[in-house]
């Protein structure tokens, strides 16, 4: 890697890093918000929830993105690429979060829930104030692991034309004729993000 290359590469790549970061954050947020009720519904064995989880975990994210990007406009739903991209990642993330939270919810001791019922908390309050916090705390490593998966998966939204890290590296490779350096730099930035995220898992005891 030459000094000229770094000088040319760094500004656009850093901008693209921001795009990767916030689109991943958006997807994880959607995933958590939708994943919680989805987990509760899956635990109650509602069919739609089980089918949802099976679909979004069973179909490659790339195909989901193609579906959202190409198929939705045909149905008259015209979304900006960024909304389609982040939204699809979020819907997919929700399925994984639901599975994680389902595992966590199963760990919540029964007596704690009964105590809450006797004290008069409503089922919604019990879910939001007792069961979910316990599940999220127990599953924090898995949730952060899923966040890391999403950061990596976000490289796929380059396919629908969003200028994030991977897309930016493609452009760099084309303009500099240095694909090796471009993709290595791109990979290094992903690695730094994910190492930072996994340090979060290890830091701060529960």
């Amino acid at each position, binding site marked *: 890697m030459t000094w000229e290359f770094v000088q040319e590469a760094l500004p656009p790549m850093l901008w693209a890093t921001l795009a990767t970061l916030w689109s991943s954050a958006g997807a994880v947020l959607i995933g958590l918000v939708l994943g919680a009720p989805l987990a509760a519904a899956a635990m109650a064995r509602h069919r739609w929830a089980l089918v949802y989880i*099976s*679909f979004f*975990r*069973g*179909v*490659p*994210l*790339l*195909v*989901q993105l*193609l*579906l959202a990007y*190409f*198929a939705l406009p*045909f*149905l008259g739903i015209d979304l900006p690429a960024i909304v389609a991209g982040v939204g699809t990642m979020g819907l997919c993330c929700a399925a994984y979060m639901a599975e994680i939270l389902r595992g966590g919810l199963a760990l919540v001791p029964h007596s704690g829930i009964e105590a809450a019922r006797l004290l008069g908390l409503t089922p919604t309050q019990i879910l939001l104030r007792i069961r979910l916090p316990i599940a999220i705390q127990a599953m924090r490593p898995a949730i952060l692991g899923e966040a*890391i998966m999403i950061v*990596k*998966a*976000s*490289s*796929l939204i*380059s*396919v629908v034309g969003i200028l994030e890290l*991977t897309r930016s*590296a*493609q452009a760099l*490779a084309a303009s500099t004729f240095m*694909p*090796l350096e*471009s*993709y*290595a730099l*791109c*990979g290094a930035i*992903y*690695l730094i993000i*994910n*190492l930072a995220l996994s340090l979060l898992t290890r830091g701060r005891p529960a």
Partner: protein
Amino acid sequence: MMAVFSDSMVAAARGLPVTLIIWLTAVAAGMALGFAVGALRFFAPRAVVWPLVAVVEVVRGTPFLVQCFLLYFGGPFIGIDLSPPLAGFLALSVYGAAYFSEIFRAGFLAVPPAQLEAARLLGLSRMQIVWRIMLPVMALGVLPALTNLAVILIKETAVLSIITVPEFTFRLQAVGSASFAVVETTLVLALGYWALTEATAFLARRVEKRIERALAA
């Protein structure tokens, strides 16, 4: 509409075998490599373990798509000039191996130390300990994680379409853009993968049950 349908069928008939062959060979290669790495991390000297850990962490910390780009577009600059299917197979094997090695490592860690110390005191060699003690003891425990990863790798094969491997996604996308029937072909893709992953997961559970019973007997 009929034409799109029959074109899709032809494309699927051409693309699915490519998907399946790359997937199966990459799972086999990745599992073997992953097992070796997992075992080495236990027994090899520090100087070997360190770089291994670094490689595993790099592979696990970067997107599969970027790895594919690096190998396929960057490779030729350092003398690695592979056809798309070969590059795809290699990338998927290495990617899988990193995750397989973590599963095996966790399995090795779960073997009670007393059993290993007993084997060492009795004079078994390292290889013997790995094959005769650790592998059987942990096999049952790691099986679900292994099949789970295999299913995840099916989905990763779709990414190979981006480096023009003529697999399922690539073929159907080609039909879609040629016929302007993208909705239909993308739906076929989604349903095809969904059926494939569900069927694999179902089969895997049955195999797990059978092995469990065989080991229990």
